[in-house]
């Protein structure tokens, strides 16, 4: 047996001192703990702010684009020498030459092939297509003069936005000293400036940053999500109604329930594997098509919608059901006429949140080939298409510096869609959801 330590006699002052010490220590720990909590909240908020500020600073410039003002003469001899005015003849003309003539008129001192080529490089290769589209839509322009703003090349655009530094020898990035001189002259005469970037909102993807737009991806997203909504809302609502209103609790419905809860936590890429193996491998549906994307996203969002819809149905008080049944309604009439209208706002809120998740989903769509480089804007559910988040992924891989701002720009567009959808969900919940 060990000896008990002798109780040391303490004076009251000593005891008070000890208590005060321990209290100081404990209050210090309290303050420290509280500080950690504040720090954690602050870190989270700081990251949100940092992320959004970074994206907007990088991406805001994507909505503006450098344009060059030139006086173009629509020379009939160059556009339509035969004078047929047939669309296919007008389409086949060399509009690049038209631009060259106009630029040479602006800079008469430029001579020689090399210099002319450098001059042409100030303007995007897409400018010729824009001119062609202008002439195609109004052939009466042929033979007349017009002042047009032509799309400038990505290098000029980045220089104007201050993204490439000027070097001491007068060069800058890929631009030669000569080109810098012309750019200076154009800027001085207000013939080169940053204007609203329409191309970004009207064009599909392109290898040239200045011609690349998000419209193709936006349309792809719209097609995919429309079909997803048309499939997943009815199926999800029906499944929720069955499980909540009709199914008796037995092993079978328990299995379905466990299943739905687990599916909600399966990584999205696994749904992509399912889509690849079943829809493309087994049923032979086309790759890169919004249909397959919609099928995969339907399966992915179903658990979310079912869980939210069940919660909404649970929120309808049983007295409503009993009253309907008491008046002689059948079970289906009771659900369709009374329970469903009351639960609808909640179900729709859940569906919108599910759709917002589907809109941001990337990984499963990579699996089913929606990552292809697609220039044309899709026109239907089976056309090859890509979607907004995948477009972000594709552009973020591009080495050109000009694509960085476009990626951020596309992200801003994507986030804008998400904000609208979530705002709709919040409004729906606040305005129409009833509390009993």
């Amino acid at each position, binding site marked *: 047996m060990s000896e008990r330590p002798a109780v040391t006699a303490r004076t009251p002052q000593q005891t008070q001192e000890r208590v005060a010490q321990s209290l100081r220590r404990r209050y210090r720990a*309290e303050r420290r703990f509280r500080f950690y909590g504040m720090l954690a909240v602050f870190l989270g908020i700081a990251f949100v702010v940092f992320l959004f500020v970074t994206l907007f600073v990088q991406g805001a410039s994507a909505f503006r684009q450098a344009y060059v003002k030139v006086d173009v003469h629509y020379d009939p001899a160059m556009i339509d020498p035969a004078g047929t005015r047939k669309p296919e003849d007008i389409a086949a003309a060399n509009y690049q030459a038209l631009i060259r003539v106009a630029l040479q008129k602006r800079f008469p001192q430029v001579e020689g092939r090399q210099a002319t080529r450098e001059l042409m490089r100030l303007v995007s290769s897409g400018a010729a297509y824009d001119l062609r589209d202008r002439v195609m839509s109004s052939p009466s322009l042929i033979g007349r003069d017009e002042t047009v703003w032509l799309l400038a090349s990505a290098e000029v655009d980045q220089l104007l936005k201050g993204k490439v530094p000027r070097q001491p020898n007068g060069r800058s990035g890929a631009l030669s000293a000569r080109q810098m001189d012309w750019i200076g002259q154009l800027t001085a005469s207000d013939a080169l400036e940053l204007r609203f970037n329409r191309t970004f909102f009207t064009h599909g993807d392109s290898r040239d940053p200045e011609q690349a737009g998000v419209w193709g991806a936006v349309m792809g997203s719209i097609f995919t999500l429309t079909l997803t909504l048309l499939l997943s809302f009815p199926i999800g609502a029906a499944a929720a109604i069955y499980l909540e209103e009709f199914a008796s609790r037995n092993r079978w419905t328990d299995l379905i329930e466990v299943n739905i809860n687990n599916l909600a936590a399966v990584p999205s890429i696994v749904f992509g594997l399912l889509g690849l193996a079943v829809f493309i491998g087994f049923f032979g549906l086309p790759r890169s098509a919004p249909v397959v994307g919609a099928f995969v996203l339907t399966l992915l969002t179903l658990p979310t919608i079912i869980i939210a819809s069940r919660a909404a149905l649970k929120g309808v008080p049983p007295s409503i059901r009993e009253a309907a049944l008491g008046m002689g309604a059948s079970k*289906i009439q009771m659900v369709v006429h009374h329970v469903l209208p009351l639960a609808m706002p909640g179900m729709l809120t859940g569906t919108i949140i599910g759709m917002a998740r589907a*809109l941001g989903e990337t990984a499963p769509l990579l699996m089913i080939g929606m990552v292809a480089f697609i220039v044309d804007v899709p026109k239907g559910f089976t056309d090859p298409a890509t979607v907004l988040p995948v477009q972000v*992924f594709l552009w973020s891989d591009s080495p050109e510096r000009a694509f960085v701002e476009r990626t951020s720009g596309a992200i801003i567009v994507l986030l804008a869609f998400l904000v609208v959808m979530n705002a709709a969900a919040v409004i729906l919940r606040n305005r129409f959801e009833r509390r009993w």
Partner: protein
Amino acid sequence: MTPAAILVVLVGLTLVAYTVGKHRALAVVGGSRGIRNLHSLPSYYGALTALWCAVPALIVFALWMAFQDGIITALVVSHLPPDLRNLTPSQLGLALNDVRNVVAGNVPFDAARPEIQAAATEYMSLRETSRLALAGLVVALGVVGIVVVRAKISASLRARNAVEKMVEWALIACSLIAVLTTVGIIASVAFEAARFFSKVPWYEFLFGLHWSPQTAIRADQVGASGSFGAVPLFWGTIMISGIAMLIAVPIGLFSAIYLAEYAHRRFRAWTKPFLEVLAGIPTVVYGFFAALTVAPALRGWGTVFGLDVASESALAAGLVMGIMIVPFVSSLADDMITAVPQSLRDGAYALGATKSETIKHVVIRAALPGIVGGVLLAISRAVGETMIVVMAAGLAANLTANPFEAVTTVTVQIVSLLVGDQEFDSARTLAAFALGLVLFLVTLGLNVLALHIVKRYREQYE
């Protein structure tokens, strides 16, 4: 007739069926005056007719569309010239692709080789025949449905009960889709994985230390078989998820504690949705942010401290992933903490505990099962996360413990193996499904474990 046109015709026929059924029901009892003799409302007789018109036709339509392409392709292949038919499966697949491109109009008809042209012509004519047959069959089924039900309509026909039975079956079918999805995932992934394991033994896959899934273009190429040891992938996944959890658990837990226990009600009302924004941002945005902002910054700081940070480091991906997961941890922990009854806190205060002591010794312990469950769910989220690691973690299968080096994960490899054109038979493609199977099983296990812990150890108050 295109499939869409067939569907439009069917919709029209269904509307006709509805009117026919409704009018027939009224006619049977002698107009609206005898309506009380009908068992159900006239609209139910219309609905019954419409359902019998549309449902069988739709089922046939769906089955036909699902199998039409396969059958036609098989027919076209069997009529191909022998030299084409005897090609290896992959070359045959290429030829078939040519045929499909011609059919779809992606390639002008005249630009194709003559044998492809012939096959395409046959394909198109077969497809036209098949579509005509389908249109005939669908319309015939619809009309038969209308005629049969119309003949059966009588005053005592229990139309409402029949319609409601069918609606209930439809509801059951919809809820079965969830089960079918699980079955589909397991069946498809396991089937392809089994084919992979018939080429590469499972122990080599699970325990091999070397991952280089190159497949041979020529048979005599060096390293033709590739090696499929997945341990570096598992390690990379564990490391990045670990870094993510090191960020997410403290930040998530402490912010939940602060918001639930300390913060003013109004501060909480503003801050909580703000933090939950993190959960709504698409992962591709995080990936872009990790690759273009965080990774270069880490590299820059690394050079300041004399560290060599790879431009695709595990640290950058893990950090950003951790931030992404914060709201999952914090909202689950918040729910659990607010569920702890006030009486427990009051008891601790009565014993003289400070607020932080109460939280540490009473509240957190009472909420622990829920918090552990939430953390497990967050881990499963981190393991399955794809876009951040694809964009920020890179492809190098390094077996390293250094967080500044590049590692790769299971999901990155699935993406890199399957993106782009590939054939279904190569070990390379099948390896992705084997990885998918592992991923599915691991996340499923984590979820089941999390739910089990929450259910088993949760304290029931009141």
